[in-house]
């Protein structure tokens, strides 16, 4: 399913895809060692023990079903490599994909390595690039450990904010959440990203 593009978001999406393109090569090389994550979405109608019956949407990671709620007021697309969320009315996007690292790479000890990898996605032509201090546990949900980085820059004169967040899920895999937004919309886009991720839970866990 192709994402629907608005003209103002073409550049951003291109940058996002570029970022996504990078790690994929590495993923191919390391697949043999890492538990499998497939972001293809499945649906399950579950009779509830009480109250309304619900439809659960989930993907598979490390053999477990990870249930999530589709974000409201967003265009949501997926392929096996990841999710792409385009919030309606905001100049930004959210991507969720496999990380190039594994949980065995301790987030705190290897912070600079994580940052170096995350920096690769900064678009060429970005000016006034500033990187903020790393953020420990930007996604403090479900007992996850996470590490995040924030860049601000100008691209073709437009101020932008980019965040890259590495999250160790409870099933033993690591995912990366990347947000890219015009500076004015960055807070709102990140809020949607946090809300989306906070709703993940392991079925049967």
């Amino acid at each position, binding site marked *: 399913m192709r994402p629907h593009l608005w003209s103002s978001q073409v550049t951003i999406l291109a940058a996002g895809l570029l970022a996504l393109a990078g790690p994929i090569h590495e993923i191919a090389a390391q697949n043999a060692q890492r538990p499998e994550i497939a972001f293809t979405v499945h649906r399950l109608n579950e009779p*509830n*023990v*009480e*109250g*309304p*019956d*619900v439809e*659960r*949407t989930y993907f598979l990671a490390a053999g477990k079903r990870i*249930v*999530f*709620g*589709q974000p*409201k007021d967003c265009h949501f697309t997926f392929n096996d490599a990841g999710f792409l969320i385009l919030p309606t009315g905001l100049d930004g996007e959210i991507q969720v994909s496999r990380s190039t690292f594994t949980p065995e790479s301790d987030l*705190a*000890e290897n*912070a*600079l390595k994580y940052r170096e990898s995350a920096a690769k996605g900064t678009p060429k032509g970005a000016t006034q690039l500033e*990187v903020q*201090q*790393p953020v*420990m546990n930007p996604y*403090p*949900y*479900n*007992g996850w450990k996470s590490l995040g980085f924030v860049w601000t820059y100008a691209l073709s004169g437009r101020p932008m904010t980019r965040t890259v967040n590495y999250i160790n899920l*409870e099933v033993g895999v690591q995912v990366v959440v990347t947000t890219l937004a015009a500076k004015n919309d960055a807070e709102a886009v990140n809020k949607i990203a946090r*809300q*989306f991720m*906070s*709703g993940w*839970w*392991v*079925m*049967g*866990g």
Partner: protein
Amino acid sequence: MKTSNNESGSILLAVLFMILVAMAVVSAAHLATSGQSILTSRSADIDALSTTGEGLLDYAFGKWKVAMDNDGLQNATATNALVSGSNRPAVPARMQVVDLSINPVDANGDISTEAVKTYDYKMSFVYTYRASVTLRSTGVGGERKVTLRRSLVYTSVPPTRGMFFSEGNFELYKPATMVIGGDVHTNADAHISTGTSSSNLTFLANSKVTYVGSYDNAAPAGATNWSSSGTNYPPTYAAGLSSQVKKVPEISGIGLGTASEYDTTDSNPNNDGNRELIEPPVAGHEDPTSIAASRIYNNAGLLINVSGPINSSMPLTLSNGAYTGGNISIKAQNGTSLSAAQAATIRSAVTNANVTQVQTWVPKLVQVSQQVWVPNWVQVSQQVWVSSGYYTGSGKKRHWVDTSRWETQTSMVDQGSYQTQTTTVDQGQYVPTNQYVQKTIYDKRELQNIPITDLNVGTITPALNTLNGFNGIIYMDDSGPSDQAAIRVTNGGVLPTDGLTIATEGGLYVKGDYNTGTTTNPNSVPSNNNPSPNASTTVSGYTTKSAALVADAIMVLSNNWSDSNSSSGVSSRAASNTTLNTALISGYLSSVSGGSNGRSGYSGGMNNFPRFLETWSGDSMTFSGAFVSLYQSKRFTGAWDTGDIYVPPTRYWYFDTLLLTRVLPGIPATGGFVRGQLSRL
């Protein structure tokens, strides 16, 4: 021909006689007819007088209700002024108001000059007034007069007089098997259904369901995307729907005169609704008298404020009536006398901090040099030989005229250079440090780490029992940076002798048995040891105390709860049998069509009014008390779901009949104005 005089006289007499007879007949007919018209006219006039009289009594009810709501209890002078002089409405021209009055009456109906308080069987305060009207009109056949009387009754009812009181909709949408044995009231609509069959949800004969809006077996209004699946069965009413389910007037507010003050359109944050009960007043704005009188914050005997991780090694100093130190403040008010030693004991019962390893970034700014081309575009002029010319002449005279020349041309040339630029790069690292931070638990419904402050009731109770003048009300709040902080009540098996109300504006978690007499062993409570419909809810020898927990949302944690599992999957959070004997007064969330994070949007219903966070399958949660859903939750607004949040318990839930007469510290009454008996004299 002439008649004789005798003949003339006879004729005259005969004529006169006939005239008299005719007149008599006509009179008789007239009388008969007018008698009929008198009956008809009288009947119609009495009807008109009755109708007008009833209208005047309704007018009197309206004026009385507004006066009571705005100005409190009214005496006879005040109530009669409401319907006299220019306050008396006009009546049709042919009628006269002989009397229109409103008077307080006592239990025997005798008029009193002041409002008379009586008690009804629920120990509610009852104030009865009598509105009386006499109307007169004159019509065919004479005067007609009608006298009508109606009782006007104000009942002040603590909302704990029934099993479930709800300001918002009362919803039970396909709950697990449930039996309800207490009164249920909603000031809005009732949506009650069960999913399997009617026998799955039963209201016992003593359970009355009263509603103000509407009643149906449908899903709550607006819940379109989840309400159409399957069949909604009506519940079973043991004594029949018509005798158990009734529409009634609203029981509103948190005390006399509060509901009329509510206004969400003005800029005053101190008058927005029932939730003012748990909120402190906002400084700089008027606090309406009736609302201020009901605030638990104002009525508490002890105010406990926490502003960060509590450090009990810091000294407590007395300042502005409060013992303060180490991020905690303990203030006695409303006649409570508190010594320094007692304050220290109370502080020892309040804990919220632990040592946690925190990764702290230690920057290491490093100058990094690199060669960077710095452009320098310069406008450069240069002489350029421009070859040009032309041929002229013809034939042999044809010749080339050379016009070549030097011209000045200007162009931009980058005359930049590589320069060494030094940038600052942070090549720091994370360093783990042990810090004293406020403890948190992960709430799977709120999807947040919740800053928690624990109140150990077992530790504080002996101190409260010796606290002179203490009225049984503790108001506790966390004014730290999080807007979703909560207090947690632990070790609450034994309460103070005179009862205890604990209130907070944030969330409230209650962990383990509460008001059961449990000290160390939950299985000493029969309802935990062997849960069944009639198992005792207290340890042998323990008498329950007046108890109420009041908060924005109340979460019940079982005896088996462990903080370390709070963020684990639901199957790791196994509960155990737990019993509570208390009133729970808390907020609700309205059902919506679709919730966030894939949740249905259902409120959870009455059966999830106390919120669960564990796997309770095979375990029971026994409850004896009352549920009061008084306002919308503002801080704990996580939508309901089962999923990874909870698996429901077997619910043995009872209405505590002691609450029919018990006065719970700090819990105000809601009031209802009712038109009482109407009679025609």
